[in-house]
């Protein structure tokens, strides 16, 4: 077979080689207030990692999509610059008494995530492991969820962390991938068997039970997450992913309708019953009702958007400290988009969203070109998870919808989120590799 050099990928990666070091140098110059680029180590390691991933794919003759890696690397690169610019004490680890800053810790996660991406892209050439053991995966996901419910640690009122020894991680990120794999396997298996088996009651076509049952099961799980973990963002994300996949698999609008009815009913009941839901909604409707208490985060984020304006305060020159602290809590995770919008302005924020739009577009194209239903649905689910997650957190930051704590894929500080996002990219790469092989067209 002809060798693929992945020329498009390399060409698109070259600007990143300049972009990330430039960003880090800029942050150093502004911080030191003199024309000295300062240490660029972090940027150089990042560039080496990304190019290394590219080389590994070329070496293994990978024929998958050539835009995914550059897109993820651009988004991740801007994110790394942003994390480097924030005060390094916000997060980070100190293994063996070594003081490691936030950006350096994130860089280590990048190394792990990119490796995972390459390994999955290269070795998952046969989807059997995912497809045939879908119920095993479902059990794994359910077990993870149950463990989190029981043993999870609470941070900021949401129980979504698991600690194994010194390492803590967010199981929701792993469950997200497992959910997509299971639903794709389930729908691919049942889809043809049930084509057209609908009963008509009045003007509504009632779908057959094997479709309705998992829908109700997922809805029950999602409500469990809302009530027990209090993790509204993840609940919304899971339900959205599932509904999208169901709609894509069947093409029936009635599912969307039923799903929306369930969603509205669930939201209403949650609002009435649970204080933590009510606080979020009230803050969304009027954060200025309690600007120094519950509405503080949202109010400060709105000020940050306002300071940023069209062109931003300039990288390294925004984000004023208020009595020695950054005013927005969780700016390195949930509110990193706000930090980007303040320093790079609408112009920079728009660029980030456009990059995500391109990523989603690419993912859906991979789904269309896939040769079997499982791969196709898998690609749809993974793409939806990345796209929807971005929408939920960005809209939450901008007070378009009630704020729900969830990470900004590739950008937010945090290993679990970064790893899950790159695993998704790896799976998308492997799906597109299989379609390219089956098509046998010249690269």
């Amino acid at each position, binding site marked *: 077979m002809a060798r693929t050099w992945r020329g498009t990928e390399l060409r698109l990666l070259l600007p990143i080689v300049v972009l990330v070091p430039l960003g880090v140098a800029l942050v150093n110059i502004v911080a030191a207030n003199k024309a000295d680029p300062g240490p660029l180590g972090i940027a150089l390691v990042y560039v080496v990692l990304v190019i290394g991933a590219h080389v590994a794919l070329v070496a293994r003759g990978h024929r998958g999509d050539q*835009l995914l890696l550059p897109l993820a690397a651009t988004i991740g690169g801007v994110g790394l610059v942003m994390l480097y610019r924030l005060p390094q004490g916000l997060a980070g680890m100190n293994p063996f008494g070594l003081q490691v800053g936030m950006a350096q810790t994130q860089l280590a996660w990048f190394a792990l995530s990119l490796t995972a991406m390459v390994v999955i892209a290269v070795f998952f050439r046969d989807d059997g492991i995912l497809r045939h053991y879908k119920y095993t995966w479902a059990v794994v996901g359910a077990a993870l969820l149950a463990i989190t419910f029981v043993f999870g640690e609470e941070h900021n009122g949401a129980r979504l962390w698991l600690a194994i020894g010194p390492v803590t991680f967010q199981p929701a990120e792993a469950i997200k991938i497992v959910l997509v794999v299971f639903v794709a396997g389930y729908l691919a298996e049942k889809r043809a068997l049930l084509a057209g088996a609908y009963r008509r009651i009045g003007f509504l076509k009632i779908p057959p039970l094997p479709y309705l049952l998992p829908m109700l099961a997922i809805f029950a799980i999602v409500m469990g997450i809302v009530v027990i973990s209090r993790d509204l963002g993840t609940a919304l994300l899971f339900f959205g992913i599932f509904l999208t996949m169901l709609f894509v698999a069947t093409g029936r609008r009635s599912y969307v309708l039923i799903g929306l009815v369930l969603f509205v009913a669930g939201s209403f009941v949650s609002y009435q019953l649970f204080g933590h839901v009510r606080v979020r909604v009230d803050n969304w409707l009027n954060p200025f009702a309690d600007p120094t208490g519950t509405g503080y985060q949202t109010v400060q984020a709105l000020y940050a958007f306002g300071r940023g304006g069209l062109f931003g305060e*300039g990288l390294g020159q925004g984000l004023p400290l208020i009595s020695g602290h950054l005013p927005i809590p969780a700016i390195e995770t949930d509110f990193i988009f706000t930090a980007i919008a303040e320093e790079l302005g609408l112009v920079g924020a728009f660029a980030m969203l456009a990059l995500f739009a391109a990523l989603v577009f690419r993912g859906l194209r991979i789904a269309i070109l896939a*040769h079997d239903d499982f791969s196709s649905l898998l690609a749809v689910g993974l793409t939806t998870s990345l796209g929807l997650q971005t929408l939920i957190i960005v809209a939450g930051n901008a007070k378009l919808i009630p704020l729900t704590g969830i990470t900004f894929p590739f950008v937010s500080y945090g290993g679990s989120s970064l790893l899950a996002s790159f695993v998704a990219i790896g799976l998308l790469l492997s799906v597109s590799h299989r379609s390219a092989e089956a098509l046998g067209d010249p690269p």
Partner: protein
Amino acid sequence: MSSEEALRILILVLQLAFVGLLYLLLLLFGRSLLRDLRSAERTQEAARQGIGRLTVLESPEDEPPVGRAIALGPINSIGRNVNSTIFVEDDFASATHAMLTFRGRSWFIEDQGSTNGTYVNGHRIDRPVALSYGDELTIGKVRMRLER
């Protein structure tokens, strides 16, 4: 020009370069997307001429040869009879072994009273079965996968 002013200008230039580079990347991504969209249209057109194909995964007698993708019409007979739409050279296949048909929006496979049976994903079928793209058919010792 004081050195402080020079520093301010340097920072401004670098900031512009950073955002400019980000937009250069966007432009490059946009161009690649468009170019691929055009070529994808062509591939799609080529693909739309068929409703599916069978890729041969395993074939002891090498007829049909392993790796071949057989384009399918709406009605396909599978068997050892040389007049079959899909001719299978295999001692364990019957003359008229199975029918593979496209009805409405789905593919169906029906066994034609073969001696050794027709298998879908490893399960023997006893009635017409709807198939998904990605399902595996076994006729005698020949294994094939239905693909889009």
